[in-house]
C-alpha cells in the first residue's frame, strides 16, 4: 500500500492548550465571529428547552438510556451486528485508527472508485481517512458547507455544528471563489449565495458518485438501524444516491432500542440548533432493494473508546450525542474557538474526550482538562447530563498521577513536593512563611505584586497577586494570645 505507514500519518506535535489559544485570543475578528455565533445559538437552544415542558424528564431519560447503552455495550454490539447483517449490510470492526483506515481503503479500492463523497463525520477525521484515501489516489469530497471551507483552507474543524465556525462569511467567500470558480459565488459573500454556490459545485459530484462515506448519530442495536441527523441534505445525498455506502461510527453511538430514538430525537435538535426538529433525519437498516445503495458497510470503531469505558467516571463522556451545546455556553470556548483543543473534538466535551481516547502522555493532551474554569455551565445544558466539570477534575487527577512516576519530576511536582516537606513541620513552615512574606513585600508595589520571579511568574502572567500583610495570622495569634 502506498500512502501512510502502518502506524498512520505522524501528526505534528500539538502545542499545549494555553499556547495554542494565544493566536486565537489575539485575533479580534475571530473573537467577534465566535461571540456572535455562540450567543445566537445560546439564545435559540435556551428558548427551545424552555418551550419544552418535559425537558428535564427528557434529559433524565437521555442520561439513563445512555448509561444503559454503555453498560451493556458488548451485547448491544453483537445484537447490532446480527441485525445489520440480516438486513443485507456488512459489519466491520476496527481496534484503532490504522485498522479502520485499512478496512475503509480496502472497501473503496474494491469498488474501483477514484472519488468519494463524504458527509460530516468526526470518526473519519479521527482516523485520518482523507489522507489515507488521497494516498491511494482517491479524491475525497467533504460535502457539508463548513467542511468544504475547512478542506479548502487546510484547517482543522472548530465546532461540532459548523467546522468553519472560526471563519466569517467574507473568508468563506474568498475560499469558495478560489477553489470553485465555476460555481462562482457573488463577491459580496452573501450567505444565500454561498449556500447556492456549494449546492451548484457539489451537485454533479453527488449525482455521479459511486461511493459515499458517512458517519452516524445513532446505531440502534435492536433493529440494526443507522440514524443520521443533518440540515443540509448532503448526508441524504451520500446515503441515497451512490451504489456503495460506507458508514464509519464509534462504538459509543449505540443505543439499545428503536423506542429510545423518541428521547434523542427530541434532545438533539433542540440542544444543537434550537430547532424543534433538524431539517433531515434519515434512518436505514441494511439495504433496501430499489431504494438507495446496493452495498452497505458499517465500520465499528474502538480507537480508545474502550479505554474511556474502563474509567467509571470518565465513561460518561461516551454518552455524548454531539449536540455542541457545551461549546456554546463555555466561556473558554467562546474566547479561544475550537482549534486549541486539538484536531478532532473541540470544546468542553473535547477536553474530557480527547484525553481519554488518546491518553494523557503528551503534554498537549494533558493540558486539556485544565482548559476550563470549572464554571459548570456545560453540565447545566448537556442534554444527556454529562457532568463535564466532574470528569475534568477527575482527569486532572489522572494527569498528576501519570506524572508522579516520572524519573524527573515536573516543575509543578517538584514545587508541590517542596511545599509538602516545608509544611510538614511547624518550625519549617513558620520560617518559610516569615521569609516568604519578607520577599513578597519587597516585590510588591502599591500593595500588589505584578510579577513573580522564575516559574512562579506564570501565575502572575494574567493576574496580580496581593501583597501579604506584614504580620501573618500565626504571628498575630502568638503575639496576642500567648
Amino acid at each position, binding site marked *: 500500500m502506498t500512502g501512510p505507514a502502518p502506524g498512520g500519518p505522524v501528526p505534528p506535535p500539538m502545542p499545549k492548550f494555553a499556547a495554542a489559544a494565544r493566536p486565537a485570543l489575539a485575533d479580534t475578528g475571530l473573537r467577534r*465571529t465566535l461571540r456572535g455565533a455562540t450567543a445566537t*445559538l445560546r439564545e435559540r437552544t435556551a428558548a427551545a428547552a424552555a418551550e419544552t415542558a*418535559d425537558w428535564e*424528564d427528557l434529559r*433524565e*431519560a437521555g442520561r*439513563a*438510556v445512555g448509561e*444503559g447503552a*454503555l*453498560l*451493556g455495550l*458488548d451485547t448491544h*454490539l453483537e445484537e447490532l*451486528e446480527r441485525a445489520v447483517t440480516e438486513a443485507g449490510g456488512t459489519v466491520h*470492526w*476496527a*481496534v484503532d485508527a490504522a*485498522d479502520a483506515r485499512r478496512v475503509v481503503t480496502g472497501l473503496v479500492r474494491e469498488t474501483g472508485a477514484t472519488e468519494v463523497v463524504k458527509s460530516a463525520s468526526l470518526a473519519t477525521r479521527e482516523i485520518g481517512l482523507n489522507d489515507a484515501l488521497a494516498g491511494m489516489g482517491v479524491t475525497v469530497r467533504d*460535502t*457539508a*458547507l*463548513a*467542511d468544504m471551507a475547512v478542506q479548502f483552507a487546510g484547517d482543522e474543524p472548530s465546532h461540532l455544528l459548523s*467546522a*468553519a*465556525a472560526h471563519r466569517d*462569511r467574507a473568508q*468563506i467567500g474568498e475560499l469558495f471563489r478560489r477553489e470553485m470558480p465555476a460555481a462562482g459565488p457573488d463577491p459580496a459573500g452573501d450567505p*444565500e449565495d454561498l*449556500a447556492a454556490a*456549494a*449546492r451548484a459545485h*457539489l*451537485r454533479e459530484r453527488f*449525482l455521479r458518485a459511486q461511493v459515499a462515506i458517512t458517519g452516524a448519530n445513532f446505531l440502534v442495536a435492536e*433493529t440494526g438501524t443507522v440514524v443520521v441527523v443533518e440540515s*443540509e*441534505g448532503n448526508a*441524504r*445525498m451520500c446515503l*441515497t444516491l451512490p451504489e456503495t455506502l460506507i458508514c464509519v461510527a464509534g*462504538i459509543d453511538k449505540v443505543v439499545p432500542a428503536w423506542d429510545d430514538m*423518541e428521547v434523542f*430525537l427530541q434532545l438533539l435538535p433542540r440542544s444543537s440548533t434550537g*430547532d*424543534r*426538529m*433538524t*431539517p*433531515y433525519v*434519515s*434512518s436505514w*437498516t441494511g439495504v433496501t432493494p*430499489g431504494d438507495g445503495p446496493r452495498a452497505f458497510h458499517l465500520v*465499528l470503531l*474502538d480507537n480508545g473508546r*474502550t*479505554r474511556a469505558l*474502563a474509567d467509571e467516571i470518565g465513561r460518561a463522556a461516551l454518552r455524548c450525542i454531539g449536540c455542541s451545546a457545551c461549546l456554546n455556553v463555555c466561556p473558554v470556548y467562546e474566547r479561544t474557538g475550537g482549534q486549541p483543543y486539538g484536531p478532532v473534538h473541540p470544546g468542553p466535551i473535547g477536553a474530557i474526550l480527547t484525553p481519554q481516547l488518546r491518553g494523557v502522555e503528551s503534554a498537549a493532551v494533558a493540558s486539556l482538562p485544565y482548559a476550563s474554569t470549572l464554571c459548570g455551565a456545560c453540565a447545566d445544558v448537556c442534554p444527556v447530563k454529562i457532568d463535564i466539570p466532574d470528569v475534568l477534575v477527575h482527569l486532572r487527577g489522572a494527569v498528576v498521577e501519570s506524572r508522579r512516576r516520572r524519573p524527573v519530576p515536573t516543575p509543578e511536582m517538584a514545587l508541590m513536593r517542596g511545599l509538602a516537606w516545608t509544611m510538614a513541620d511547624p518550625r519549617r513552615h513558620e520560617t518559610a512563611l516569615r521569609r516568604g512574606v519578607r520577599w513578597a513585600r519587597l516585590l510588591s508595589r502599591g500593595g500588589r505584586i505584578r510579577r513573580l520571579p522564575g516559574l512562579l511568574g506564570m501565575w502572575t502572567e494574567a493576574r496580580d497577586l496581593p501583597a501579604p500583610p506584614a504580620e501573618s495570622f500565626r504571628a498575630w495569634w502568638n503575639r496576642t494570645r500567648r
Partner: protein
Amino acid sequence: MNAREEVLRRVREALGGSRGTRPPVPRGYARRLSEAEAATRADVLALFTERVADYRAAVRHVGADELGTAVAAALWGREAKQIVVPADLPFGWLAELDGVRALADTPAVDIDTLAAADGAVTGCAVAIAQTGTVVLDGGPAQGRRALTLVPGYHLCVVRADQIVGTVPEAVARLDPARPLTWISGPSVTHGIEMTRVEGAHGPVHLEVLVVED
C-alpha cells in the same frame, strides 16, 4: 485474535463487574400533547400547520375534493413544467394538472431526468404536529428516497389522520426496517457563522398540503 473479538474483549474487560447492569430508565416525559397544547383534534392540525410554517415552508389546508386543484395550483405557482411522482401516487392528486408533465417513477427515472425535474409530489407515512415534521417511509404514494431529494421542490400531501401529536407517537407508528426520511422544512446550512441559511443540498422549497376530510 481478530478485530471483532478484540473490541468485544476490551469492552467486557472495561465494564468488569458492572457489565450488563441495566439502570432504570425514568420515562416521565410526555408521550402525547397536553391539553394546553391541543385540546381537540382541530388543535392538533392547527399546531402542525403553525409549526410547519415556522420553518418557512408553505402549508395549506384543503378539502379532499379540492386536492387535485390545490396540487395543480401549487405547481403552477412554482412554474413547474415537469415533475416526478411515485408510481403509486393516487390518480386524483394529479387529475387537474394542465401543462405540467408528471413522470411516474416506473421504471425508475434516470438520475439526469430526476435532476432536471422541477419538483416531486408525494404523500407521507406520518406527520408530527409538535415539531412540524413529515416522515416518509417509502410506503404508499412516497416512492424511493431520491425522488424527494434531488429535485429542488417537494410538494407533500398529508392526510389529516396521518398527523400525530408528538415524536414518541411517531416513533411508535414507524417501522425502522424501512428507510425513513424525516423532513422539517427546506434544506438549511449553519456553515456560515453558524446562522440558519436556507437552500443547501436538499430541496430548497417544501410545500405541505393538509387534506381534511
